């Protein structure tokens, strides 16, 4: 399951199709026409793949697991910059662990809009 932090989400600068809506492999995210916010329309269908988490340009989305699976609050945020993927995993009590991995060699991916 993912959570969108609306204090951080910038509605992709008003773009018609939001990045998270565009990338979700399950087509689970839509946009509320009233306030232009992206909304997870089918949260129970999330695969926890983190495609939207990584593709969000302002890192407004985090992954959590349903309570029936883990029984506690945790979250994962990730972002993609050039050849690297950055990730922060937060456990109970706010304990954080950070990762920085190089996942592209020779050249970078264009960022497409």
């Amino acid at each position, binding site marked *: *399951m993912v959570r969108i932090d609306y204090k951080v989400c910038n509605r992709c600068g008003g773009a018609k199709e939001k990045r998270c809506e*565009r*990338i*979700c*492999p*399950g*087509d689970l995210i839509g946009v509320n026409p009233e306030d232009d916010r992206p909304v997870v*329309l*089918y*949260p*129970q*269908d*999330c*695969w*926890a*793949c*983190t*495609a939207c*988490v990584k*593709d969000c340009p302002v890192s407004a989305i985090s*992954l*959590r*697991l*349903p309570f*029936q*699976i*883990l029984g506690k609050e*945790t*979250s*994962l945020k*990730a972002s*993609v910059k050039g050849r690297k*993927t950055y*990730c922060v*995993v*937060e*456990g*109970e*009590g706010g*304990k954080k*662990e950070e*990762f920085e*991995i*190089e*996942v*592209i*060699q*020779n*050249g970078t*991916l*264009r960022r*497409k809009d």
Partner: protein
Amino acid sequence: MEIVRKDTDLLIIGGGAAGCYAAVEAKTQSPSLRCLIVEKAHIDRSGCLAMGLNAINAYINPGESPESYLNYVKQDFMGVVREDLVLSIARGLNDTVKKVEEWGLPIEKRPDGSYKPRGRRGVRVLGERLKPILAEAVRKHRVEVLNRVAVTNLIKQEDRIVGAFGLGIRDGNLYVIRAKALIVCTGGASGLHKPPNPGSGRHLMWYCPWNVGTGYAIGLRAGAEMTSFENRFIALRVKDVQAPTGTLALGAGAKQINARGEPYLEKYHKDSPVRESSTYFRLLSAVLENQAGRGPCYLDLSHIDAQTLRQFKVDLLNMSPAMLLMLAGREIGDYRFEIAGSEPYVVGGHGEAGYWVDVERRTTLKGLYAAGDVAGGAPKKYVSGCWVEGQIATRSALQEITPGSLPSIDEDLIKKEQSRTEMPLKRRDGLSPQEAEEWLQKIMDEYAGGLSTRYELNEEKLLMGRTLLKDLKSNVPYLKAENYHELVACMEVVDRIDVARTVVEHLLYRKETRWPCSQSRLDYPQRDDAHWLKFVNSVMDVDTAEIKILEKGLHGQD
């Protein structure tokens, strides 16, 4: 619903591992060729590879050969594999891996520059962005991509497949795509059986939940021959988060232990009916240990040091991010992870269910080729084998594409598909796709060897399953959708029903137990090499939808 018409030379259905590789191969061989990928999601993060990958499990490391790879696959699947297909994959593995490395995939190296092996037949990769890398190669080679269009049927005229119909998920339009040749690369099927967790956990599954068997279903409805649907794949994984056990065992040196902390694999080895198959042996031993009251079983990482732990976490970030949440805040020493078998899937990449193809990856339908998880007879191909199959299928398909014009499509066929696909939107009352899916999964769980019955099967239950599926299928006209997302979900459940019916017929037909858990017949508990060292194949009648079973010899003969 508007009709959108498109023409291309080579149509690739599904832009995953096989589809992307096939498309790049096509434009490399023939830059002026028109090549179109139709993709249900967005090609940057669709299908099995959406999460990423931390190892390529099919690679010919130094000291191994294509022949030794074939021997391993044959042994692991109890002798019933298509040797010609497996060998053709093995011979192409290293070249395709090299190619994807050139496209940008980081592969871990030893000081001498050779790939660092993971196990005998694997290499370690940092594949968090493998799917975007493949998608970028597709774009660089100027392949046309149609995202968010879900293929609903093949177009068959006279004896030949001449195109495909697709439903636009965003615009609700019906796409009518004509092509000179087609390669189906949609992947296999999840969601046939009930998943391990309900509600908010229902999609925490091993296989991509949006790989629903559409590639099989469109072939079945056009009369293609399929093979080995009784060879269901069950993944032994970290329970609930479905993290790969290979990452723990091969990557971090974890041992399988039972609830008492005892390693249990060794004691089963001498008498196990599947001791020659590491895949089935590990799965069956865990199931038996649970049945004997010594479960749960675990992978034990309690002796891990800080450096290996960090490496292990990086591996998870590359492939299984949800498991990082399971590790969050845990201290070293508290590292045992419960393992369990998944619900069954139908796939041709880990298992061997799929289209019956020749060594050129031609299906039994003219103009249609198959590659990747949707192609049968060659298990353990994994991602690199899917690339090889994409390459082979493209090379064969290109030979068939000649200048000439495309045939015109019968307008009645278009009207028929339009009315079939838009019907759920017109119903005010009826069966929601969610309800139909739950109905299907209940039937398959209870009568076709799901998790709740510990995968066990017998004839009477399977016959009951057959009857109930027929009843479910007769309710397809009552499916209703509120929007385009649900409309596609309706089409997906229709596809799953056709695949599930085929699975049940295959399970009924093979009267032995060759692959325990995948196909555990309580009424025929022994493996019977005298009678069953052969393939079970099937064809669905295009008019009556009845499924006819055919037997094929190990070398493909009738």
